[in-house]
């Protein structure tokens, strides 16, 4: 589904990613871990198409298409979803209306008719129930005045509505208390199937107790320095990143 080959990227002239290669197949969950400043969020931003990040070298293929030639809108419409580390507040844009616009954008692109507002409301209610979100979040403006945890839940709500083929969740666990973490994880797990894939970017192992990765990669100074299975995350939790980074 996703092939990253020898990716080098810069921000403001500084090289942040120094040759990343990663292959993600349908049905897989990959966890990308690493200390602060290792390039995790940069990788997420590049995958989502942020204009401030410059790809200096390498290639990214999504379903055999050149991802780097697609803008953020096209990436989203082709099935990539980015769950932001810091979801942006957009005052004045109603949460439910925005979700419907996003949902319809995809339907229009797939040559389908826009959804009936009442049908959408039903769909939204169902997904909100799954995430234990109160109905008031329909009426509120997009992330406006939401707590950190509410914003993260709202990201997963968007994911649930948009049903991406590939979701990249950038530190979705940060800002969540234990109950919210469990709810969010259950929500993410319920969206899994053999046709979609997930990249979890996280500092901590605790999210991985709930969403079990097939692969764990450790990023350090812009490179993947170690890959393994779930056991690697547990090892990291007990030994710290120094264990891996000093080796490299």
């Amino acid at each position: 589904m996703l092939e990253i080959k020898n990716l080098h990227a810069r921000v403001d002239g500084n090289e942040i990613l120094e040759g990343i290669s990663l292959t993600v197949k349908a049905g897989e969950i990959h966890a990308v871990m690493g200390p602060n400043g290792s390039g995790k969020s940069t990788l997420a931003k590049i995958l989502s198409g942020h204009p401030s990040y410059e790809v200096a070298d390498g290639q990214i293929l999504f379903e055999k298409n050149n991802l780097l030639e697609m803008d953020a809108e096209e990436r989203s419409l082709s099935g990539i979803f980015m769950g932001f580390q810091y979801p942006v507040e957009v005052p004045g844009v109603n949460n439910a209306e925005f979700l419907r616009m996003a949902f319809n954008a995809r339907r229009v692109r797939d040559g389908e008719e826009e959804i009936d507002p009442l049908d959408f409301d039903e769909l939204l209610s169902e997904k909100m129930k799954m995430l234990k979100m109160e109905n008031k979040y329909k009426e509120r403006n997009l992330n406006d005045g939401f707590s950190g945890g509410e914003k993260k839940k709202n990201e997963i709500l968007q994911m649930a509505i948009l049903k991406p083929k590939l979701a990249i969740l950038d530190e979705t666990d940060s800002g969540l208390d234990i109950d919210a973490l469990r709810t969010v994880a259950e929500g993410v797990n319920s969206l899994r199937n053999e046709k979609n894939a997930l990249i979890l970017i996280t500092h901590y192992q605790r999210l991985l107790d709930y969403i079990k990765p097939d692969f764990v990669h450790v990023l350090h100074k812009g490179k993947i320095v170690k890959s393994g299975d779930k056991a690697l995350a547990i090892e990291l939790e007990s030994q710290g990143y120094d264990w891996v980074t000093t080796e490299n």
Partner: protein
Amino acid sequence: MPNTLVKSSAESAFLDLHKKLLERGRPALAELQEIALRRFDSLRFPHSKHEMYTYVNTKELAATSFGLPDDAANVSEDFVSRHIYPGCEHQCLVFVDGTFDRGLSRFEGMRADIAPLSEADRELKNYLSETAANENDVFASLSTAFCGDGIIFKVDDNTQISDTLQVLFVSTGRAAAPVMHAPRLVWQLGKLSEVKVIEKFVGRDGGYFINSVQDWLLAEGAGVSFTQVQADVFDSWHFSKTRVHLNRDAKFYSTNASSGTQLARHHYEVWLKEKGSELKLNGISVLDGKEQVHNFVRIHHAAPQCVSRQHFKNIVNGAARSSFDGTVIVNREAQLTTSDQLVNNLMLSDNCHTNNKPNLMILADDVKCTHGVTVGQIDEDQWFYLQTRGLSAKAAKELLTRSFAQSIIQTIEFPAVVEELSGSLLQKLEATDA
């Protein structure tokens, strides 16, 4: 007519026009007009550095040769009904070219007295004369000098009018030979009375200068919800002066939505005269091409424990211009004042222009006052965020532009107005390339 006037050609032209007005017969408010004309003479049109017109170039307006509107301007009921909001069909006052048109108005059964201004009682006449003699704005003087017989809208003590009243100002216009007209309204609200008013300004053709003045006199505990929709045609000049006097615990909540004209200026002067009175003054303007909207605000906190909150937003595109010049004056007696003043500008093009001067003058020592201005473009992070959800760059920009306006538009309590504004006022920006 005072014979001491020696003026430049600009002022002379208006004085000559006033002579023509007198030739039509003695105006209903002749004495008031004379006072205003004298004041006009002493104030004169503003020079480029005039403190009240720092950001507003009135040179072309002052130099324009205006005529008087036709006595028998004909506006169809169909035209009027197109501009009356649903729910206001039976409570609407219509002004055509500055003159109250009783035939087009509907107010049967309304629990208010609607009378010609010439029938004002002595107290109100004294107020009007004194105000005209001390007018600080030359265009408001000009308005009073040319006003027809305006109306007094009077609500008795303890009367709450639940139905919304609409006032429609129609300007028929005359592109070939522009006309000036000056609607005049006085609102007198008794103790604990309440009224909800929507005013809409529309033009049939271009080539007019609508220069209105209104006074809102609120007795103790009175409450007003006031919405103005300025929807004149581009080829017009729109000046307004709104004076508000708030007595004890009176509340005046106002929102103005302006689509701009070649030159539009709103002047607000508010006195919070007694303890516990409250003002909300909001404004939104959406401007494109060469449209202009200028707001000039003076708020006087004269008593303790009063609240004033101002929030103005401007969306400025093309080569449009906006400005805000607002001062809150907190007198020594006005302890425990709460006052906010915020202006946000969203600039969508390289050639648009905004000037902002928020100002506080605080003489009391126990108050909570804030003021601020922002000038910015579309937020890149918000824009990107929306695109990552599948919205095109253009659709995302439109959505953000709308969202910027929404916080003001959403304060309007009339759904029909909100719907109209959400659609029409912002529609003109949709053509903008992202």
